[in-house]
């Protein structure tokens, strides 16, 4: 919990935490974790801007008072802010530490694959089985192995990004669905998927490749590709279903997840 103490000092004077009877109010608040809870609460409120922040706070402290398992605790930590926010990195470490300090049945400490897999399942609970399966195949560990932080970070981040990505893919499909009848032209979809795939292949260690990819996925270039695809496809009435498109797009993403295991 070294991280946690570090962050607290921002809010508090740098006092030693004395467990004596004459503890100051600030010491009491930091000892009982109120300081960090309030920090979390305000972060959460500002990030989410709930319509009724007061009831939001009530729910927040309620869930904190009832939190029992380390799994739920770390899950909440991960959901505190969106993963694109800088403070997510901090939360990631905290979540890992919470899980790591759990005692296992054999008396050893550390994050086992079992807990890690449980956490991933928890994070994936909004996905359908068909959506979650290919992802879990790539990031899940054996239940007896020890999960190191890079693996943990990769797994959690992949899960979040994957979920965002599915949303993006769906909206992309809706864009491609020119007739708005829930069916997009097959050639068009394939062309776009192909471009996407090429773009991911192009990225190498060379920083310039990122710029090249950027131009590949620019609206100008995509416009050109898509109009070509439409002309080539002509009047063919072949279509691609939304599921098929999203699975195809997801496949491209999943291939990018490196294997640290």
């Amino acid at each position, binding site marked *: 919990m070294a991280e946690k103490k570090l962050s607290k000092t921002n809010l508090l004077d740098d006092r030693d935490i004395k467990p004596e009877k004459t503890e100051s109010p600030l010491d009491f608040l930091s000892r*009982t974790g109120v300081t960090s809870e309030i920090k979390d*609460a305000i972060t959460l409120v500002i990030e*989410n801007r709930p319509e009724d922040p007061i009831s939001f706070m009530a729910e927040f402290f309620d869930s904190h*008072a009832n939190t029992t398992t380390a799994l739920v605790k770390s899950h*909440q930590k991960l959901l505190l802010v969106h993963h694109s926010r800088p403070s997510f990195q901090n939360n990631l470490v905290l979540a890992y530490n919470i899980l790591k300090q759990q005692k296992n049945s054999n008396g050893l400490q550390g994050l086992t694959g079992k807990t890690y897999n449980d956490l991933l399942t928890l994070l994936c609970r909004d996905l359908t089985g068909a959506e979650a399966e290919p992802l879990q195949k790539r990031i899940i560990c054996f239940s007896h192995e020890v999960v190191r932080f890079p693996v943990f970070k990769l797994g959690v981040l992949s899960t979040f990004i994957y979920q965002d990505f599915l949303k993006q893919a769906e909206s992309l499909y809706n864009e491609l669905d020119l007739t708005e009848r829930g069916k997009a032209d097959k050639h068009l979809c394939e062309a776009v998927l192909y471009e996407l795939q090429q773009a991911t292949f192009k990225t190498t260690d060379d920083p310039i490749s990122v710029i090249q990819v950027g131009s590949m996925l620019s609206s100008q270039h995509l416009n050109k590709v898509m109009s070509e695809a439409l002309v080539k496809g002509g009047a063919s009435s072949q279509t691609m279903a939304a599921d098929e498109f999203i699975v195809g797009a997801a496949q491209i993403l999943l291939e990018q997840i490196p294997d640290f295991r």
Partner: protein
Amino acid sequence: MSGESDRFSLTAEQYLAKYHVLTYLQDAVAQLLEHKEENPRVIPARFLSDYFRSVMQGNHTLFREYSYIRKTPHNIASFIRVFWKCFRHIGRNGDLLSAKEYHSLICLLCPDFPFEPVQKTARIILMEDAMDCLMSFPDFLYAFQTQFFYEEFIDKLHSTYQALVSGTYRPGQIVVVPSTLTRPTQHKSQLPSHAAPEAAQANSGDGVDVHSFLEAILQIIHTSSGSFSCPPVEIIKDLLGSVERVTFYGFLIGLAKHAGVNDSIATLPDKSAIMEETDQELSSPAPRPKSGRPKSGISNAAKKAL
């Protein structure tokens, strides 16, 4: 009240200030520390959760100090509701009480509640004179609600009204009001233009010309910019639309009796329902103007993260 986009276009500070999040957090921690002295085994998260839940339900102002009640509109509204819930049997019995007696009742709920707001409430009902007269509970309740909820607005309006009235005696002069309020210079410069027609009508009756009165009100609402509660403009226009001249207390009693005012504060039920004894009323939370709360903080965060 506040649209979705409105909420997200604010800066973090503005957002927190708008919903008084920090006010409540500060008070919650202060309460926690006080509570801890007597109950060292308190679970802080549970205490805070209970605190915010009671803020939501509107029974957090009971037995609290006056300064705390005054802090947010929600606190004021909650206090008025608690007052109604505790003493409505008085209204059912049809007892009439004086301002002093009403003040004693309020002091049972808030020991350091000053007499002044109660006195001002009595003035609204009794039209400034006959201060020892007795008032019925519903009359007092709605006038008290108006006076207490719009206190700052009414204070400002009072000074402006006096300026308008005295302006009729000295047309063409800018009136300096002996009060602490900071009236905008823009408004002062508007006064002379209205002073002439007022002077003509000054002999025709009490009060001031309704147009200059309305303009003064709009000016106050405009300068408030959300820092204190003002009655909705439509209601004011509705009240003033049918009259030529208006007096200060005449306007206030109209405001107190207007159903729209009651709706906008959203604390008390309709006048017809005020006496009804329903047990579930006692336990149900006060309807808050900011409704539509998220089901769960965590699930909400989850939605955001996806």
